[in-house]
């Protein structure tokens, strides 16, 4: 488990483009479907009179989903190859697509955008690519699916690739972050085995391509941010004076002896120990959930942030962010929310809404409110300062959610400018 690569993938595509089928196929081809699950799929496929295996049944887990033949809620699916552990978020394509894709993509490094070869690049494709760009995913795979229905025609594929490439030019992606693969999820062409029906395609199969992605390129790297999640005080005889600050490290490394500052007080100290369970380390890489002790007695509580004294983030009582509305409650000027930035919570008020952003890269317009699935630029005033970076420079420290104070639902996600 420790040495294997972990790659998290979000799927995207319009309704019926074949996302669930593709994932089912990946499971089948990597022998991740156990015989009992496979038998259940065979049985149900037969009952429905299909002459093929309906692999979407492997992931569409809810009753209503199987009855209607559509995906309703995000499912997380796991499969392994000898070299890599994969987690795929299977997202629904029909309604609330933006919300679901943003959610799935927020924990992913790679997006697979499916396009129905018969339909080509459509509005949904723009939107999904826009979100991949907004979330700054490391890599996008454009899978042109249902090639079996267009006679595995090369020209159809080239046309779609060409259309998509004009979108890439408008985005922040480099062309080497985007890969185009012609596939048939249903028939298993170019998924795990190279398609003999498309000899004109010289690239990797989807699975081979996923395997060669370098995770080093996909992970963030930069300055260290350590939000204190929980203060550990054992109050036992053996650890009488122990005061450890536990949390997850983001962005960059920390090491023993580093000069650190604690926000918001800006008190300074030095890292005395870095611990994980009963082991001590000299240095720690981002992504780890660790416990840190300091040289000095400093007053630190949950929500404070420990950073290197030479790398202080912004601390402000106002913030501008790109907001994606993930709840049916619209966001309006004057609305108040709980803003959760990482683990830290403050109160936030919408000062103004600058714009509603078009997800086809065509610009923006002014608006009074952001409705479910809308993306827009919003200014907030906060009850207390938060210590943030731009989303561009540190994903974890540059994002937040808004919580409705009445229902406590998560209503928006924000990416700080």
């Amino acid at each position, binding site marked *: 488990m*420790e040495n294997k690569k972990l790659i998290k993938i979000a799927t995207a595509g319009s309704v019926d483009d074949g996302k669930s089928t593709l994932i089912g196929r990946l499971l089948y081809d990597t022998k991740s479907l156990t015989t009992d699950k496979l038998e259940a799929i065979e049985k149900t496929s037969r009952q429905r009179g299909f002459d093929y295996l309906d692999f979407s049944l492997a992931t569409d887990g809810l009753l209503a989903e199987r009855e209607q033949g559509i995906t309703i809620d995000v499912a997380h699916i796991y499969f392994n190859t000898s070299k890599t552990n994969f987690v795929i978020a299977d997202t629904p394509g029909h309604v609330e697509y933006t919300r679901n894709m943003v959610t799935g993509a927020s924990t992913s490094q790679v997006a697979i955008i499916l396009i129905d070869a018969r339909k080509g690049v459509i509005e949904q494709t723009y939107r999904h690519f826009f979100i991949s760009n907004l979330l700054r995913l490391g890599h996008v795979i454009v899978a042109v699916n249902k090639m079996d229905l267009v006679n595995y025609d090369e020209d159809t594929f080239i046309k779609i690739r060409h259309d998509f490439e004009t979108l890439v030019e408008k985005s922040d992606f480099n062309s080497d972050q985007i890969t185009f693969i012609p596939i048939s999820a249903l028939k298993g062409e170019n998924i795990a085995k190279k398609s003999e029906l498309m000899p004109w395609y010289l690239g990797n199969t989807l699975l081979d391509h996923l395997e060669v992605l370098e995770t080093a390129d996909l992970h963030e790297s930069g300055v260290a941010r350590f939000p204190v999640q929980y203060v550990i005080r054992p109050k036992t005889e053996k650890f009488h004076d122990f005061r450890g600050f536990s949390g997850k490290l983001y962005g960059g490394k920390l090491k023993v002896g580093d000069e650190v500052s604690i926000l918001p007080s800006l008190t300074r100290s030095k890292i005395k120990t870095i611990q994980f369970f009963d082991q001590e380390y000299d240095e720690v890489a981002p992504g780890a959930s660790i416990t840190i002790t300091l040289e000095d007695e400093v007053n630190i509580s949950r929500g404070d942030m420990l950073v290197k004294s030479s790398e202080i983030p912004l601390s402000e009582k106002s913030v501008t962010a790109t907001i994606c509305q993930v709840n049916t409650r619209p966001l309006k000027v004057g609305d108040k929310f709980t803003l959760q930035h990482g683990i830290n919570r403050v109160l936030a008020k919408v000062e103004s809404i600058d714009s509603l952003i078009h997800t086809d890269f065509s610009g923006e317009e002014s608006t009074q409110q952001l409705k479910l699935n809308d993306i827009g630029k919003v200014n907030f005033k906060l009850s207390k300062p938060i210590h943030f970076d731009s989303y561009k420079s540190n994903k974890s420290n540059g994002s937040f959610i808004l919580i409705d104070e009445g229902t406590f639902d998560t209503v928006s996600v924000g990416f700080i400018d």
Partner: protein
Amino acid sequence: MSNLYISNPKEAESIHILREVAAQFEKPVLLFSGGKDSITLVRLAQKAFYPARIPFPLLHIDTGHNFPETIEFRDQLVEELGLELIVRKVQDSIDQGKVTEERGRYASRNTLQTTTLLDAIEEFKFDACIGGARRDEEKARAKERVFSVRDDFGQWDEKNQRPELFDMLNGKIHQGQNVRVFPISNWTELDVWEYIKNETIKIPSIYFAHKRSVFFRDGLIWTANEHVYRESNEEIVEKMVRFRTVGDMTCTAAVLSSAETLDEVVDEIRLSTISERGARIDDKRSEAAMEKRKKVGYF
């Protein structure tokens, strides 16, 4: 040479979740079944709060049909780690007339546990119940959030779940609601076994191959024992078996196995072509069995 700590990403995520539970809730509890997943949870909690003690108790819903090995193991673990253990019994719910015992060939106390669990939540006013469910177990579980909000009746509203973005967890709830928390959501069965092996975590003996009196039904292997219904023509035989999950005896089937060590168990899982839940009778009742149980407050 400086020694650099690079985390196991799944372990780091689980620890992050457990610390969020301790910070965001007033009365969390860890639902402890005695199975490998809840044992793994205990290890993760130990790591999350070290050198302090785990800041919440364990709750075991005892069906009365447990494998004695699991109970023995449970008590030992609690003793060793100095944990607080609460036990609530399905038998008491039956005696109080709150639930009725099932009868017949597939009689099990598995579904009855829900009532006992909900009563315990109310009794202790638990606001967060930490469970060892994984998304790879079953297709309805694949839809589950890490923080899953339940209403006053313990119900799961699968179509109206809070989106979970990045690793930000929203545990805000109203009085009477509670949250089910699944820290190892993203682990697979193999991940759990490899972790148990790498960490040399102790697990109950029934996970290893042993000789047992069993009988065969519907292609599955059942423990022959007074709690498990058996037709007179269902013949008892001695076999080398082990269990892949340990639930209630009446719903957990064994598999034929010769795996006596953790290495052998991990190898067996790696090569296995049948899912862990393939040996669970409770899921076989219908294709949507799990989803239906979850809606009414099951683990």
